[in-house]
């Protein structure tokens, strides 16, 4: 574990990405304090203005300040995504640890339920749940948790099982440590790294999903600002003002890329690769940028 933090700190690119994400999250939380304008304040006369000192990113089709909308949109997209991820991971971890640690009938029951849940493609489930419950942000959150929890349980169970096989857990059991103690002190400490990788990579997916659903009009409703929704509005004015497509798309792309990169970095810091190849140096900026291996998550 200690080695992990040291390696991570040495990875300058990973640190910069973490810093970037930290800033993004901070901006999202502080949006109401920072944003220069009210994101829903319309000013038709001032519509479609290009970037200027008054409006850093220009204005949209209703004269609203794009920069403020991006800030508020980030608030929605990122914070909701993080919340969704946390809830899903919580459910996944609890059930995954139960299934993986205790095995037996507990494991069987949980896995059977997961099997049935997993036999639905997740997109279909999300659409179905949104269809039933109606549109809106809370509903898509619930839909995404319901759609993904089974997958998490499977993954975390697999991680737990791989740790159960390790000698130090066996030793702890033999030495008579209580179940709670083993789970908290030994299992989780080891597994938390891998779970963190899952969490970061999945946050990226959730962000994409939420913005996609909002893009379709199934998520937030106007006039709330949200990056996917902004892209939808931009699409409608594509022919006359294609520039509107840039800011929200770029925002989603950068944040998703950052989360992906972070997940990869955490994975690398957990398991430093032994095979370094011919060029040899560990983390030149160039190699770090193009040398990432992403865990194939599905």
């Amino acid at each position, binding site marked *: 574990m200690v080695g992990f933090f040291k390696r991570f700190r040495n990875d300058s690119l990973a640190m910069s990405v973490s810093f970037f994400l930290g800033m993004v999250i901070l901006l999202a939380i502080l949006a109401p304090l920072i944003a220069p304008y009210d994101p829903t304040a319309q000013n038709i006369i001032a519509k479609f203005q290009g970037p200027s000192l008054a409006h850093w990113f220009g204005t949209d089709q209703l004269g609203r300040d794009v920069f403020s909308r991006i800030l508020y949109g980030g608030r929605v997209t990122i914070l909701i995504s993080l919340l969704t991820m946390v809830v899903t991971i919580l459910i996944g971890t609890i059930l995954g640890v139960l299934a993986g640690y205790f095995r037996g009938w507990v494991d069987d029951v949980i896995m059977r339920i997961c099997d049935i849940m997993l036999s*639905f493609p997740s997109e279909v489930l999300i*659409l179905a749940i949104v*269809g039933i419950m109606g549109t809106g942000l809370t509903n898509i959150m619930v839909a995404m948790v319901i759609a993904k929890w089974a997958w998490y349980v499977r993954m975390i169970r697999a991680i737990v099982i791989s740790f159960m096989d390790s000698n130090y857990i066996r030793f702890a059991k033999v030495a008579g440590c209580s179940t709670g103690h083993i789970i908290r002190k030994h299992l989780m400490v080891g597994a938390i790294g891998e779970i963190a990788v899952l969490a970061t990579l999945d946050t990226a997916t959730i962000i994409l999903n939420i913005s996609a659903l909002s893009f*379709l009009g199934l998520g937030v409703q106007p006039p709330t600002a949200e990056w996917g929704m902004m892209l939808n509005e931009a699409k409608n004015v*594509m022919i006359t003002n294609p520039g509107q497509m840039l800011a929200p798309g770029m925002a989603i792309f950068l944040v998703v*890329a950052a989360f992906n990169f972070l997940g990869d970095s955490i994975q690398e810091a957990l398991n430093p690769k032994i095979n370094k190849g011919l060029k040899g140096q560990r983390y030149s900026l160039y190699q770090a940028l193009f*040398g*990432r291996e*992403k865990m194939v998550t599905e």
Partner: protein
Amino acid sequence: MKQYIVKRLLWTIPILIGISFFAFILINLSPSDPAEVAIRVNEITPTAENVAQMREQLGLDDPFMTRYLSWLGNALQGDFGNSYVNNKPVAEEIAKALPPTLYLSLVSLLIIVVVSVAVGVLCAVKEDSFTDQIMRGIVFVGTAIPGFWAGILLMWLFAVKLKWLPTSGMMTPAAVILPAVTLALGYISTYVRLIRNNMIQNKRENYVLYGRVRGLSEKTITRHIFKNSLQTSLTALGMSIPKLIAGTVVIENIFAWPGIGRLCVTAIFNRDFPMIQAYVLIMAVLFVFCNLFVDLGSVWIDPRRREA
């Protein structure tokens, strides 16, 4: 192998039953009353009488099992009820919309396979070279770009600015290009990586060393590596075919493609429950059968698993 096939086929049945059950329950979880929705959608004000009438018409007051079994029975005969929106049989609408989606998915799949294999093999053969690193950089970028953003950007570039391709619809054969490419983009990244990593892993295998030692040409050795890595990649590819079909939703929406994705989204906006229900059921069944097919296929390809 035979035992495995039989076991697998038998296991499909309870899964299908479970799916149908779940799809049915799904509708009944709705917070709103389907009868009320059905009336509202047709722009009639719901009153106590016509709601009650609608409930009877839709058979909503019958006990659960009766409703489930009658629904299931109808479904197996291809009758999924009528759409709340236009009162036409849902099965008809889906039958009209399914072929365009399958066509789009197929073209996408073709693009994915061709590009992934070409780039993946190239990167694996020239491991760690400049080409490899550039490609992997592009791949990394590709995984982060939201599909719908890429879609509208491409649409703007090729349809609006350059006017080479149509913006929407299915009118001309060329109309499938933009949606198919956009759809493929999301998956190409994953598969290039998969094939490349697979091949590189295989490159380190002992049989590659032995091939070199025997004096085989690099071409022959690469052929062996490729065939081996194809196996695992094929399985992963097959598993995502149903995902591909389901994932057409956003693309169809952007490009106004008349497929089931667009049908589903419209149904959601209109709270058209029978349609949503049928969509879920059909997609889940498709999913199960695709997985079955791919599962059996992957066992058959690998001679090592054929016996076991």
